């Protein structure tokens, strides 16, 4: 599936939720699932500092595609990371670089990617795209 196909899929899934509670419960469940990153990458080199929560990101280059793994110390942040990884991981590097992540807004999580919220997510998305550029 392309980046946009996955995004549309996620938007459709979220359409089932009646209120913010259900949506957040789902995100929290995503956050609680198994670690998304090899523990050895949870180090300074892979850390994206946020004032509110920390994010670790690792990118691997498989041929022309990029594989992302990531984690966060906050579970809601981690849940959102799970969605981002689902959208961008395994995609062609160039597609990652050029992606437009509209699903965030559509499923009502825009505020988590505000540059002023300082949970590391904005920097992480930027970093993911930079990996896309670098590996393309």
């Amino acid at each position, binding site marked *: 599936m392309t980046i946009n196909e996955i995004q549309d899929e996620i938007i459709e899934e979220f359409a089932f939720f009646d209120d913010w509670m259900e949506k*957040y419960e789902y995100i929290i469940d995503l956050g609680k699932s198994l670690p998304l990153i090899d523990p050895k990458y949870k180090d300074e080199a892979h850390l994206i500092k946020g004032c*509110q929560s920390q994010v670790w990101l690792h990118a691997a280059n498989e041929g022309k595609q990029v594989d992302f793994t990531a984690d966060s110390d*906050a*579970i809601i*942040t981690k849940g959102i990371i799970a969605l981002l990884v689902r959208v961008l991981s395994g995609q062609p590097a160039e597609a990652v670089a050029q992606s437009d992540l509209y699903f965030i807004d559509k499923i009502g999580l825009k505020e988590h990617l505000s540059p002023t919220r300082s949970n590391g997510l904005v920097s992480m998305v930027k970093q993911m795209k930079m990996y896309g550029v670098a590996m393309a």
Partner: protein
Amino acid sequence: MATATKNKSTKKVDFDKIRKDFPLLKREMNGKPIVFLDSAASSQKPNYVLRAMDHYYKKLHANVHRGVYQLSQEATDAFEKSRRLVKEFINAPSEKECIFVRGTTEGINLVASTYGRKNLEAGDEVLISTMEHHSNIVPWQMVCEEKGAHLKVVPINEDGEMIMSEFDKLLTDKTKIVSINHISNALGTINPIREVIAKAHAKGIPVMIDGAQAIPHLKVDVQELDVDFYTFSGHKMCGPTGIGILYGKAELLNAMPPYHGGGEMIETVTFEKTTYNTLPHKFEAGTPDIAGVVGIGAAVEYMQKIGHEAIVQHEHELLEYATTELKKIDGLRIVGEAKEKASVVSFLLGNSHPYDVGTILDKLGIAVRTGHHCTQPLMARFGIPGTVRASFAFYNNKEDVDKLVEGVKRAARMLG
């Protein structure tokens, strides 16, 4: 002031009515009536203060000092009236000792970069505590680094109280200044500043108090405290953003080099030699925040009408109630349980990250602060990344506490 009651101390103040003075508290957040529990970061503003500033701009504004025309005189009178109000508010001996600054951060930086830079030498020490706000750490670090002086830190116990026996040991002949907060913004601890000042003065060491969190809650009398420098921010005490006060003893202020150079702070300027103006102008270079000054004056009037006694009592009730109710929640741990505490409750919920708790509370319309509260070394002391902090002002009520407790329970269920 419209709605604050006239009864100063003994009679009951109608806090429900007072709450109506604050227009922001009528708004919603995420579709729910807002429950504002972040007054320690910045308080809301009563109409009285907003009207005073609006009136200033619409009827009185002109640049202050030195204008011969009537309007400029009226603006200057409004400006200097605020200084008088502030002087009375903190019982300073003289208006000249009340300097307008941007806020607490600037107040401390001013002292560190004038008094500090003048008096610190290699090997000297500045004494602070583990629970200082970054604003009371970094300015001292900067001047210590420049001068080769050292920052010494009084440790705290598990409850979040300064260990005074350690203070005694750290207060030595090398100490050139002690700088401690009156109330900790992260824990709510009310520090024993009387004792700190007495002990420092016994050794001839001056004391600066960071009063950012104390002024909104307690009656502060700088003469009775015999404090050397006391600084606070207007925006935390119902006043506007961008204005604060540095009180300093005239003797010390006079001996200090000036801070900023510019208009107002000079007597005469030639390219060869400039002589400086007297207090308070020596430390107030440039056009001041005139409307901000008018606003902080109005905030002082507003708070004095309500009266500190009533405020202390009301907030103490909220603190007790919130503490009791929050403690009933499984897995909730309060960080900071000093015997003397202001209306701040910092807590952790099980293993949940404060960000997660704060996010869910936000969705419920409840505004709390999460994170390190600009006290990273304090968080490190407790080995935690941060806390969830609810802070109460006199415009909060028990219903706010109930909603908070409900919200935390909901978060516990969702995150648990």
